[in-house]
């Protein structure tokens, strides 16, 4: 079969299916699952966040910057970010072994790489920032949801950041590019492209692909995923602001007061970068 013929064939296929195409949960192709984020859920952590993204339920805790143990892993000129991704045994069906798997280690590493560009690690020599992510219930796209929760938890911990990191996947299902794949679409779909994105800096910090996409489809999927990230970002912002009641007038005088009290343990951050 010649190349042009295959192309023509898939095109007609796509057209004929377009009318019938419907996602399993009745969403539009570019629609996210409902996202809910809450901050400050672990009182003993420096910062924490809880996210519900569809039926994903994930809790993230941040500790640090603190002294690193074992000490030999610390870096003399910069801090280290450590992310532990872990799925609870009951988070999936059938039950999963609680021991860390190869997949857990990999996603932990991928999340570290996704979050690191947003941090000023050079300010914390010899220290570590620990992020613990626990999947309570999994429904596809947990790595993206985990990145979202971890980013909010980092801000909640008072760790200076260049930007928030929002994350969302796009993929291919029944020859259609769709946003934010659920568990069923993840398994039955043809491809999955998780993307993490810093919306204000407009930088992609995570890009993976599982499956087969053409060049055009890849571009389309990444662009769609970035649109999804921007929607997630708005939810993250709201979650961070919600903690402070967002009463604009109330916030006014307080700030003055705290400034004048003199004793403020203010950190003077770099003047010029």
């Amino acid at each position, binding site marked *: 079969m010649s190349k042009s013929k295959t192309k023509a064939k898939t095109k007609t296929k796509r057209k004929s299916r377009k009318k019938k195409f419907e996602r399993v949960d009745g969403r539009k192709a570019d629609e996210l699952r409902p996202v809910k984020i809450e901050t400050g859920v672990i009182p003993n952590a*420096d*910062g924490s966040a809880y996210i519900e993204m569809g039926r994903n339920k994930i809790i993230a805790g941040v500790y*640090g*910057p*603190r*002294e690193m143990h074992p000490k030999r892993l610390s870096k003399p000129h910069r*801090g280290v970010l450590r992310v532990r991704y872990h799925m609870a045994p009951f988070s999936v069906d059938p039950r999963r072994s609680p021991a860390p798997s190869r997949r857990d280690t990999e996603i932990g590493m991928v999340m570290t790489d996704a979050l690191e560009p*947003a941090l*000023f690690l050079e300010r*914390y*020599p*010899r*220290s570590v920032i620990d992020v613990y992510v626990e999947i309570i219930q999994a429904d596809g796209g947990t790595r993206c949801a985990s990145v979202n929760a971890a980013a909010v938890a980092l*801000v*909640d*911990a*008072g*760790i*200076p*950041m*260049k*930007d*928030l990191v929002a994350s969302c996947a796009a993929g291919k299902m029944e020859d259609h590019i769709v946003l934010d794949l659920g568990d069923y679409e993840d398994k039955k779909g043809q491809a999955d492209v998780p993307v993490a994105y*810093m*919306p*204000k*800096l407009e930088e992609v910090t995570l890009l993976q692909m599982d499956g087969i996409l053409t060049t055009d489809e890849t571009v389309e999927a990444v662009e769609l995923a970035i649109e999804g990230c921007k929607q997630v970002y708005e939810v*993250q*912002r709201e979650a*961070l*602001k919600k903690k*402070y*009641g*967002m*009463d*604009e*007038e*109330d*916030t*006014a*005088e*307080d*700030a003055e*007061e*705290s*400034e*004048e*009290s*003199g*004793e*403020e*343990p*203010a*950190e*003077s*951050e*770099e*003047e*010029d*970068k």
Partner: protein
Amino acid sequence: MSAKFETRDIVVPGDLLFEGRARAGDNTYRNEGNIYATRVGLANYNKDRVSVIALEAGFIPLVGDLVIGMVTDIELGQWKVDIGAENEAILTTNDAIGKPFRSYQDMTKILDVGDTIVAKIVDLDRRRTPILSIMGRDLGKARDGFLIDITPSKIPRLIGKKGSMINMILKETRCQVTIGQNGKILISGRNRENEELVVKTIKKIEAEAHTSGLTNRIQEYLKDIKEQRK
């Protein structure tokens, strides 16, 4: 050359605060000539300085800070103290008893692992490790009381304008309160009831730190509870 927010607006990391020439103050960073926020907080525009008043921030040790910490380890001639900073602080025997270390000294008799101490930061060494001292008035081992933790960035709020808030609490409850700049607070009073009242009040202040007219509200809150007790 323009401000992107009103003063006192809540901003989150990555928000563009200012376009053009200005000085980047606390909790901000400069990128390609623009100034962005690095922490969640309230935007603050001064004449030529843009800054963010942080609502969440860790403790950054500075020389002269009064801190409350816990002894975590004993080494030859020095103690390691956890003060909630990124590095553990060091307290040497010189700064603890005013004498250099002698091998016949039993260091655990001076301070043991698990002791809570009130100390002052006297120096930051070249690796930014805080050096503590407990030589001085009101410094040293804490004997009794409640120890609570609040976000270090809210300590100024607890002290209030020229100490207005904390003095009011002291007057109303007659407790002794030692405020560490690292967010740890030691409360000791004549009876447990009063101590618990102070703990409750401080937690209330922490939760409502970003609202205005707080001092008056706390005063009324304390008076209400006192009347209920009668």
